[in-house]
């Protein structure tokens, strides 16, 4: 039952964090003069009357605390406000754009962890081998390369040549899983690789270093000397202990992952919530950006709770009460 109490406490602090983020973003956005926003929306040739009308329509003429109250009231009811341009509800917009983002995050994370951890473990168990050297060069390049460059190179030198030679499996844009597993994979594999490459580099390095250190510990020698198989020594005793620092890094990296999502969506034109928000910046469409910031905060809070639970499951010394 302890875990229920723990979850309730974590969720409450999570709600406070989301509220803080929402409030800060809200007031940050109202540091801008209302007139500028309205002018942008009404167009350059607008008369003062038209601009005033735009201000009134958006409800920007009300006192700021009234607006804040409306904002919070709506937020509690799951309403993120309305787009300045289309008048469409922001939560409908973001909900429509969520599937590409979720596919990207889940697929990318799976690929990233599998590649990052397995390469790290193999490098550590075969330190100074050819594999280890090749992988550490790869890690350095992965660390030095921005996600969008990898994405662009994949488009320019994998997707384009294949596509122009009649090989239409790989594709840009987004196709939902409902359009069949083949097209879905074709659309998602390159974005997954891009997202995973950047993140995997960090994890390869981290898990290799941790495992090398762990394998030098006395209890590993004890495990070997009592006759355990090498596989059991490495996986049950070594990897398990080496993974805990890797996991705590995972909690920190959830925020960075969202940044990567924004970039990858833009490069491949997936049209997820990240790409929509980048476009919203160009249009001064503040409600959409507030919506994205809040969703990002919720994601980071939930992901961190999951990571902490995993941490407790992996490391018997950690107790959650």
């Amino acid at each position: 039952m302890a875990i229920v109490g723990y979850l309730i406490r974590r969720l409450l602090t999570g709600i406070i964090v989301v509220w803080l983020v929402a409030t800060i973003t809200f007031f940050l956005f109202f540091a801008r003069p209302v007139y500028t926003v309205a002018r942008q929306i009404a167009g350059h040739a607008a008369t003062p009357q038209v601009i005033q009308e735009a201000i009134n329509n958006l409800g920007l003429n009300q006192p700021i605390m009234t607006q804040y109250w409306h904002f919070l009231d709506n937020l509690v009811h799951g309403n993120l406000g309305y787009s300045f341009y289309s008048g469409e509800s922001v939560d409908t917009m973001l909900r429509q754009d969520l599937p590409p983002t979720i596919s990207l995050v889940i697929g990318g994370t799976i690929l990233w962890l599998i590649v990052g951890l397995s390469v790290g473990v193999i490098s550590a168990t075969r330190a100074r081998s050819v594999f280890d050297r090749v992988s550490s060069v790869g890690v350095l390049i992965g660390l030095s390369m921005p996600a969008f460059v990898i994405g662009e190179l994949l488009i320019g030198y994998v997707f384009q040549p294949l596509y122009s030679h009649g090989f239409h499996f790989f594709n840009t844009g987004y196709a939902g899983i409902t359009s069949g597993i083949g097209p879905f994979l074709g659309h998602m594999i390159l974005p997954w690789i891009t997202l995973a490459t950047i993140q995997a580099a960090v994890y390869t390095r981290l898990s290799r270093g941790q495992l090398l250190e762990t394998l030098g510990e006395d209890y590993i020698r004890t495990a070997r000397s009592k006759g355990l198989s090498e596989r059991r020594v490495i996986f049950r005793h070594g990897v398990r202990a080496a993974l805990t620092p890797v996991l705590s890094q995972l909690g920190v990296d959830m925020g960075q992952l969202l940044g990567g999502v924004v970039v990858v969506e833009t490069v491949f034109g997936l049209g997820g919530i990240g790409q929509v928000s980048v476009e919203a910046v160009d249009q001064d469409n503040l409600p959409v950006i507030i919506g994205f910031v809040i969703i990002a905060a919720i994601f980071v809070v939930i992901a961190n709770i999951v990571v902490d639970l995993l941490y407790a499951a992996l490391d018997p010394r950690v107790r959650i009460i």
Partner: protein
Amino acid sequence: MSVQTDYGFEAHQIGEAQDRSVNAPVQGRTQWQLTWRRLRSDKVSMIALTVIVIMVLLAIFAPAVAALTHHPVNMAYPVNGENEDGNPVPPGTNGFLFGTDSTGRDLLVRVLYGARISLFVGIVTTLIATVLGVAVGLIAGYFGGVIDTILARFTDAVLAFPYIVLALALAAVFGPSLTIIVVMITFFSWAGIARIVRGQTLSIKEKEYVEAARSLGAGPFRIMFFDILPNLLAPVLVIGTLYIPNAVVFEATLSYLGLGVQAPTPSWGNMLSDAQNFYQVAWWYLVIPAVALLITTLAFNLLGDGIRDAMDPRTEKLIAARRMRRRLTRRNVKQGNKEALSGLAIGGAAAAETGKRG
């Protein structure tokens, strides 16, 4: 034979006479001198350092290159710089060493001007972030208690915050600009440094010499900045070097998304963003800025790793083994000693063994 080597304990291992007088006074070397010696013997780090110096010089003298080629940075050459279809011309055409970009501007000059932005952002943000991070980490670690709790929580919050999301918000409010980029990157860089400095401060403040300073009547700020800080400089230097490439990548990403440096000012990020419309017709437009970016970040990453290894006294053994292996190889090659050479391939330890036998 008694040999005066640089490091006494290895004298018997090397077992080879050096032209040093036995009676010469032993000179003390500071930690920095030792680090520099180790760094200098690491080829990769030296190449990385050379690349960085060249990049910095090229960035500084970018206007000179523009003057030499008579191609101002934002000047378009619709006649010479574009082919019949209005596309960029390849490297080496009509005096354009790196070819031209989408509007017929000299790519070489623009890449060099892009280096100015990247290196400026990388170095300036890292400097400011280092000062902030060291201050916060020192204060949190030294005073502890409530101050530590508040600062540490704040640091963790910054580390976990999705930075591109905040960049989106700030760019929406204030409009994209170089200033926003510098503020943003600094804001997200100090936290990592603060965390490391705090950890180091926690262990250093328990040392006897801090106790001694306190008993001599030194105040907290004197202890923090005169006793603890000098001992922190090594890890701070390493992490600082490794933060520069992050900042460069960060700037390029923001400019790529249109949240940073705005056209026509060239930045590697916004050049690459434009280049993606010209994959098929102008590979150089995509590849040259990408390679410039990769070389720069790779050089800083390699140098950072090199400095970290050079700070670590354990590296000394590796270098000594490498040096000896080289010396033995040279001698054995001269004597045509195949057998000894085959033993050398195994590594430092094997080389030491061979050395003893020989």
